[in-house]
């Protein structure tokens, strides 16, 4: 579960990114976070992944209070999340299999479990046949599917997708969003940041629109950002 309670964030250079955001995302929800550039979407994502701390207010993610989290507990919080980025962020020098297996090694999974789980998740995203390839040998859509597999591998409670379709053509974007929708239907909470109104409208999920560091709309079923 995610709760943002009257959250303010001001950067060291004086920029006020968030001005009193309050929102609640329950387990099992699929939420689109929309808004123009500079509206504060990325700041929210960074707060959820504990890359930043709020200046004021409370950010609760899967039982962790980001505002007061200890440095040593940050990896524990991140293990309850699966994060997907616009630029995929795969390790170029490792194979598809290794990129996904790495996320399991990080949590101390035994090699036997890794050998069973990784092929299963690669199968889920349709990439089992490309397990030995390197990221640069794959298309953009395939690379994003590897990132999804990596995000899924540890059964996270919450998947955060930061512009996951930003570098993809419409067909591949739809494909990725369909996979995320499928993951959500299996019970995982999904928060997706996007600019693409067509996709948002097509999937008819809850949409939280942000502008100027404030929530300007929070409703289900369409793109309401100004």
């Amino acid at each position, binding site marked *: 579960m995610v709760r943002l309670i009257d959250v303010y964030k001001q950067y060291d250079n004086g920029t006020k990114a968030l001005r009193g955001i309050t929102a609640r995302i329950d387990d099992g929800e699929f939420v689109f976070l929309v808004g123009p550039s500079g509206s504060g979407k990325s700041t929210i994502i960074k707060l959820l992944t504990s890359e930043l701390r709020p200046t004021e207010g409370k950010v609760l993610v899967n039982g962790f209070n980001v505002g007061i989290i200890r440095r*040593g507990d940050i*990896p*524990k*919080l991140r293990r309850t999340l699966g994060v997907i980025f616009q630029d995929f962020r795969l390790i170029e*020098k490792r194979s598809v299999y290794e990129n996904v297996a790495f*996320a399991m090694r990080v949590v101390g999974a035994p090699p036997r479990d890794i050998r069973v789980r990784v092929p299963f998740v690669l199968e889920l995203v349709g990439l089992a046949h490309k397990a030995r390839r390197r990221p640069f040998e794959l298309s953009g859509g395939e690379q994003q599917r590897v990132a999804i597999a990596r995000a899924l591998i540890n059964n996270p409670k919450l998947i955060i997708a930061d512009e996951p379709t930003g570098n993809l053509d419409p067909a591949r974007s739809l494909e990725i969003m369909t996979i995320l929708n499928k993951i959500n239907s299996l019970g995982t909470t999904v928060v997706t940041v996007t600019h693409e109104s067509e996709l948002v409208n097509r999937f008819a999920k809850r949409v939280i629109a942000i502008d100027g560091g404030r929530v300007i709309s929070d409703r289900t079923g369409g793109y309401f950002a100004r």
Partner: protein
Amino acid sequence: MKRYEVMYFFREGIRGVFLHGFTSFAAVSVIAACLLIMGSFSLIAVNIDRIIEELRNQNKILVVVNESLSRAEAQSIGTRINRTIDNIEELEFIPKETALENYREQLGEQGNILEGIEDERNPLRDRYLIQLHDVSLMRETIERLEGIAGVEFAAASFEVSEFILSTRSIVKAVSYTLIIMLLGVSVFIISNTVKLATFDRREEIGIMRVVGATYAFIRWPFVIEGFLLGLTGAALGFFLQWSVYSSLTRMVNGLIPSFNMSPFDDLMIIVLLLFTGFGFVVGVLGSVLTIRKFLRV
């Protein structure tokens, strides 16, 4: 830490060395080159110090005993000298017959000019040759020796002892300064090389953090990689040093046969230990300090 995790860290450390071949090669080469330069200079300093030590050993005080004393009385002065003066490293009694014989040997072919002055006609006196612990106290020690009853006079070459003292202190000051400077330069170059290697992988570290890797989990493979690079550099530096020093020894011994440089075998263990220690510290510390920067966020 579980066994498979330890194995994973080692596998990743070794993999890192080969995966980032160019930066690994640069780090190993820089460590080896720095060690070779510092090692060569230190070994030259060791040899200079050895020469100075040999000169010091040759510069002894001659204590001549009063000729009115019997042999037994002359020999008893040795005990008195040992009791009165602390600064004695070695004291050797030389009867006047042996002194004459030594003199004859020194003269070589001209030794026959001493014929006919043996036994009662021997003009030399019983004597002691004394080597001091601290050559800088030579003047003071001679004064005290001359104060002992039965001692006719004591003498030594002050020029030689003063030359030894001043040369030794200059050599020491120059060696220490240069070694410290080289050490500073080496650490700077090596840490920058390691920094370059780690900087190359900041994205990889960022991804590790995003998927929930602990700081220790990220750090260990880098520490092992740094350890391997440091040790490889040290081993390469050691063998290069061995080869360079052996060639230099052969060359110097060929040019100046009277001057024997210390053989590398005598210095091998200490060089190996110092090189290994340096490689270990620089490799591991370099990686740990550099990676810390990327783990802060």
